[in-house]
């Protein structure tokens, strides 16, 4: 007679979120995918965990790496059959980045995206503070940067170039 193996205990939701909070952003490893607001929701389809993510910029080249990293991060919990679902609605917004992640961005020399409450064009007229010296005497050098989600500034006081995470 064949004995069926007992199903391994399913990890708790808190354990899963904790594991996901260990998955770094591929291009900004000092912040994780949960605090960036990219991981949206957990669900179960029978025994299979479903993680719903909302990518930041449509053309973000890191987005496929994120899916692989999420699956690898959850394997450590014994979740072998996880599925990553991609949802575009509502579209990702930089307003979803947590306060903690904004501090980490700032500490890494990347100016956090200004709060915009849906009005991008107005907020882009506001001065951007240098993440190093705090001066607001800064100039935009390029609306595009090293990744789709960044733009390049120079600080006129400390003379350092820096990047800002684009408000979206």
């Amino acid at each position, binding site marked *: 007679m064949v004995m069926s193996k007992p199903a391994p205990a399913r990890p708790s939701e808190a354990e899963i979120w904790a594991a996901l909070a260990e998955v770094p952003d591929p291009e900004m490893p000092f912040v994780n995918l949960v605090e960036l607001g990219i991981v949206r929701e957990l669900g179960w389809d029978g025994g299979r965990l479903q993680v719903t993510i909302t990518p930041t910029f*449509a053309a973000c080249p890191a987005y496929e790496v994120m899916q692989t990293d999420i699956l690898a991060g959850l394997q450590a919990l014994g979740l072998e059959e996880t599925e990553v679902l991609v949802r575009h609605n509502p579209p990702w917004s930089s307003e979803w980045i947590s306060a903690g992640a904004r501090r980490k961005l700032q500490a890494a020399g990347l100016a956090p995206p200004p709060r915009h409450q849906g009005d991008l064009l107005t907020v882009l007229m506001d001065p951007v503070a240098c993440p190093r010296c705090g001066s607001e005497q800064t100039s935009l050098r390029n609306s595009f940067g090293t990744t789709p989600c960044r733009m390049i500034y120079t600080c006129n006081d400390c003379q350092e170039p820096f990047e800002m995470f684009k408000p979206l």
Partner: protein
Amino acid sequence: MNAKQKAALAEYLIALADDELILGHRNSEWTGHAPILEEDIAFANLALDEIGHARLWYELAADLLGVDRARFPDQQVFFRPAADFRSLQLVELPKGDWAFSMLRQYLFDAFEQHRLTGLSESSHMPLAEIAVRVRNEELYHLRHTRAWVTRLGLGTEESQARMQAALNALCPYARGLGAALPGEADLPLGIVPESAALYAAWLDEVSAFLAEAGLKLPGETALAETERRAHSEHMAALIAEMQEVARLDPEAEW
């Protein structure tokens, strides 16, 4: 929507995607060749964004057609003959000088803001959702190209002359933006905005903006081809180059 309308909307979205893809491909040709490093980065990003947006439209078309959305974009991009693309000649034209590429991007981006605003009000929810997302990203393009059009238009004698020459060359092709997209006529009201109305709003906007940049729209010129089935002589070479690697080994895993 019934099956016929779904097919019409898929046709419309594939034409939109083709425009974004081909413009993105042309922009990518500036990588390593732009006049300054910042613009090299900017054009590489513009290219990446446009190709990313093309992918979203192809995926949405796949859903409407009931085919595999993971495979459909690559099939469309790498394994379709040039004659089956529905892009406008405006986006196929070689990149020209930097004034030409910048102005083409501006004209296209300005039109896209009108179209995306219309699409964001679509009664087909998946389409409206993607349109909002793409429109927010495209705001950065328009902001960038507007700044450069003004700077070059009001810059030196040479930059002004190059911009005016680019405008004269592009205008007949830009009229293609106002022609109804494939499938548009077969869709019920409220799914997509009417291209002719978008064109009128766009023309008002760009005329005023270009005048402030010291540039003048040419008067009535010979109408270039606006039919999306008719491609310029440049299209076959572009497609051959774009598809070359994928066709070497169609089954390759990347």
